[in-house]
């Protein structure tokens, strides 16, 4: 559920669409950092936004499309007048809800610790709103960041 903003227009609506390839990761990251700088986000929070963004994008890049045929990855970013940063990541790959993945067991000792699943866990821990839906054959992941993450 998106919080209602007041009467002002969104501060910086924007969109970037590129092939879902790892080499494009820095472009997406730079795009979001540039936009996030317009907000009063602390350096720490900006790093957390980068981290969540990388996890979400790499997930699409690695799993949404066949490796030989990377499809499009669409990033939509909107800064609302309420001071929150709203991100939406869309792809036309196979239907996949990353939020259904079980949390890794963080208590197991080194040799039993599973190697995967940490990215989605970090996303859940560091965001203030995270939801997925399928729409028009697209995976749509919505992410909300508040300037300061409530622990």
């Amino acid at each position, binding site marked *: 559920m998106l919080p209602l903003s007041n009467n002002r227009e969104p501060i910086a609506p924007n969109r970037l669409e590129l092939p879902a390839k*790892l*080499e494009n*990761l*820095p472009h997406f990251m730079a795009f979001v950092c540039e936009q996030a700088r317009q907000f009063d986000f602390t350096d*720490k929070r900006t*790093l*957390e936004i*980068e*981290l969540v963004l*990388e*996890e979400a994008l*790499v997930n699409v890049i690695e799993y949404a499309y066949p490796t030989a045929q990377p499809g499009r990855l669409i990033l939509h970013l909107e800064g609302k007048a309420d001071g929150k940063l709203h991100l939406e990541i869309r792809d036309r790959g196979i239907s996949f809800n990353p939020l259904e993945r079980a949390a890794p067991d*963080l*208590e197991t*000792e*080194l*040799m039993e*610790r599973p*190697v*995967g699943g*940490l*990215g989605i*866990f*970090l996303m859940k*821990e*560091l965001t203030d709103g995270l939801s997925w839906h399928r729409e028009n054959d697209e995976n749509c992941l919505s992410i909300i960041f508040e300037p300061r993450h409530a622990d």
Partner: protein
Amino acid sequence: MEIKELKRENDLLTATLNGRMDAITAAEFTNQLESWLAESQKSFTIDCSQLDYISSAGLRAILIIAKKVRLLDGKLQLAALQESVQTVFEISGFDKIIPIFANLDDAAAQ
């Protein structure tokens, strides 16, 4: 990202990690550590004071090497993590499976 050998003392190799460890650069860490392992080096202290950022790809690379090193009866320990990197380690529970020290001197004393 850059990983550089600082010194080798008493079978312990100390290296510095510089920059960002992400989905693109984590392989550089893996490749370098693998190449040291191939030289029969099996105990490492990594100075992370210049490591600005780590994502799950970086954590994964560290976990895989830490497991290999354990099987060889060696050790992989980290020192001088920046606050944001330390936070990622704590959220992931990695601070409980990877030895982390405040600085290189503390790590060397182990």
